[in-house]
């Protein structure tokens, strides 16, 4: 609860006392702009929001409890269902935490394939977020183009692991199977294709005057607010902080690659939009480099038959599509984790919404909600 203070409405009006005729608008749990089952209790003064309180938990699926009552390997499929749009990243974090605890060495080829698939996944994730967001803003066509591109990525992923969404492709110590030339060639072909598409999206969507008017200066989350709320990912980079887990806490073989961390200082929805668009280009750069350098070799390291982690706790963070995802495994030396904590980016990214949406008009608040690019099961876990 934020103590009541003076609210300045978009457009200039100031509200210092509680409005006399306010009403509560229950947005969700089933609402087209909620991207799932998010519910926001909005106290409205006309179309202006005086207070917007997210109510979550409508898709709480006990991932953390499940982690405690099954072995490490059995928990692995769960990780791709937390944020199903960035399944590779989430599996990566869990696999990484276990590898860190059990001191498992991962072969170099496996690391390269992890990076390639992770970056492909990032593009796919941003594409869905982008398309769904533009759909929230009323532009109904871009999402179909985005899904078209995404299908190309999914085809490649399906070729290597058989699933379209929930891959479970990384295993402790490597990968479940090697990639073939079809995948590598497909990834290589995808890079120039996607570059062309991004150019088209810039001309068609980014430069659209209506879109710019709707996003520029809307929903400002500045760097200080991000810090106090622990916001990460494109939202943080849209506030001008070049923080990326791939640089800050280097994992896998990311230090080998050259890439920039796009960041824009404005902190508004447009900045977050531009960050995502630029990130896709950077991901393509990483894929290109990784494809050039990929060595031959095995994709599975030496893994003990019964996986047990020494007592203690192990953290492993990755840069997922929506921000920093961290797994904290607390082990007591048995073959099941004692506690699995999943620190998900959307949870932290949604928390400043209440403060930031104060005094906004309803469509702007929804534009901002879209700019956070939420995946609700990721919040609720």
């Amino acid at each position: 609860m934020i103590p009541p203070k003076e609210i300045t409405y978009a457009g200039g009006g100031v509200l210092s006392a509680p409005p006399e005729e306010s009403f509560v608008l229950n947005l969700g749990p089933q609402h087209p702009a909620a991207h799932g089952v998010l519910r926001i209790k909005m106290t409205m003064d006309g179309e202006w929001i005086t207070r917007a309180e997210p109510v979550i938990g409508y898709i709480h699926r006990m991932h953390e409890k499940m982690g405690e009552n099954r072995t490490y390997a059995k928990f692995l499929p769960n990780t791709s269902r937390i944020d199903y749009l960035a399944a590779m990243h989430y599996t990566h974090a869990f696999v990484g935490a276990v590898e860190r605890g059990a001191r498992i060495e991962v072969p170099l080829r496996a690391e390269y394939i992890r990076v390639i698939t992770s970056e492909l996944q990032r593009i796919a994730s941003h594409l869905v977020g982008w398309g769904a967001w533009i759909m929230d803003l009323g532009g109904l066509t871009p999402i179909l183009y985005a899904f078209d591109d995404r299908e190309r990525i999914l085809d490649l992923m399906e070729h290597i692991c058989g699933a379209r969404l929930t891959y479970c492709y990384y295993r402790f110590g490597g990968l479940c199977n090697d990639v073939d030339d079809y995948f590598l060639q497909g990834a290589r072909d995808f890079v120039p294709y996607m570059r062309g598409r991004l150019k088209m999206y810039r001309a068609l969507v980014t430069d659209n005057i209506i879109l710019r008017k709707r996003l520029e200066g809307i929903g400002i989350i500045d760097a200080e607010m991000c810090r106090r709320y622990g916001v990460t990912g494109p939202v943080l980079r849209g506030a001008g902080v070049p923080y990326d887990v791939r640089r800050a806490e280097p994992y896998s073989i990311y230090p080998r690659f050259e890439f920039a961390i796009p960041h824009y200082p404005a902190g508004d929805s447009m900045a977050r939009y531009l960050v995502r668009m630029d990130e896709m280009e950077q991901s393509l750069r990483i894929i290109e480099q990784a494809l050039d350098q990929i060595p031959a070799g095995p994709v599975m390291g030496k893994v003990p038959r019964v996986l047990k982690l020494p007592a203690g706790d192990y953290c492993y963070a990755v840069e997922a599509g929506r921000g920093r995802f961290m797994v904290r495994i607390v082990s007591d030396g048995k073959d099941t984790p004692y506690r699995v904590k999943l620190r998900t980016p959307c949870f932290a990214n949604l928390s400043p919404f209440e403060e930031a949406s104060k005094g906004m008009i309803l469509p702007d608040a929804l534009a901002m909600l879209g700019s956070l690019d939420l995946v609700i099961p990721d919040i609720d876990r």
Partner: protein
Amino acid sequence: METPVNAPPTPDSPVPPECSQIVRFAKLDDLLQLSRANSLWPLTFGLACCAIEMMAAGMARFDLSRFGAEVFRPSPRQADVMIVAGTVNKKMTPAIKTLYDQMLEPKWVIAMGNCAISGGPFVYPGQYAVVEGVDKLFPVDVYVPGCPPRPEALIEGILKLEEKLTGKRRFPVAKLKE
């Protein structure tokens, strides 16, 4: 779990034959069912992972609109079929029941994905959050298994629902080669 409104009279139904001949306007009824089957408007209602595949089914590659089923209505009043795409948990139960009640007759439910069918991977002894199958909450017409099901599977589910309404299949089934 049949929806009672559209259940075709079966030989062993309790309605006496002469009565059913009087009340049933066979041709008109068939026509209406044909219309309903070809314009199944789903409710915009995504829960979890399956919702992404539901969206993918509506997109250019799979294109649900070929069968006139791409009109995703956000208001339950205007929707005909509710695609429960994802896990339903106990906190969500009152909301999803309300949504079902708000939909107007005739209405159908497709349970998409293992979570909606049985609770899927989230069921284990002593679980505290997940509803083990939406058919515990309201009648389900078509079950589409998978985790998540492919978009083709959802389209097949919708065609199955059409088949349930009209009694005929739109496309012949491809025979698997031995």
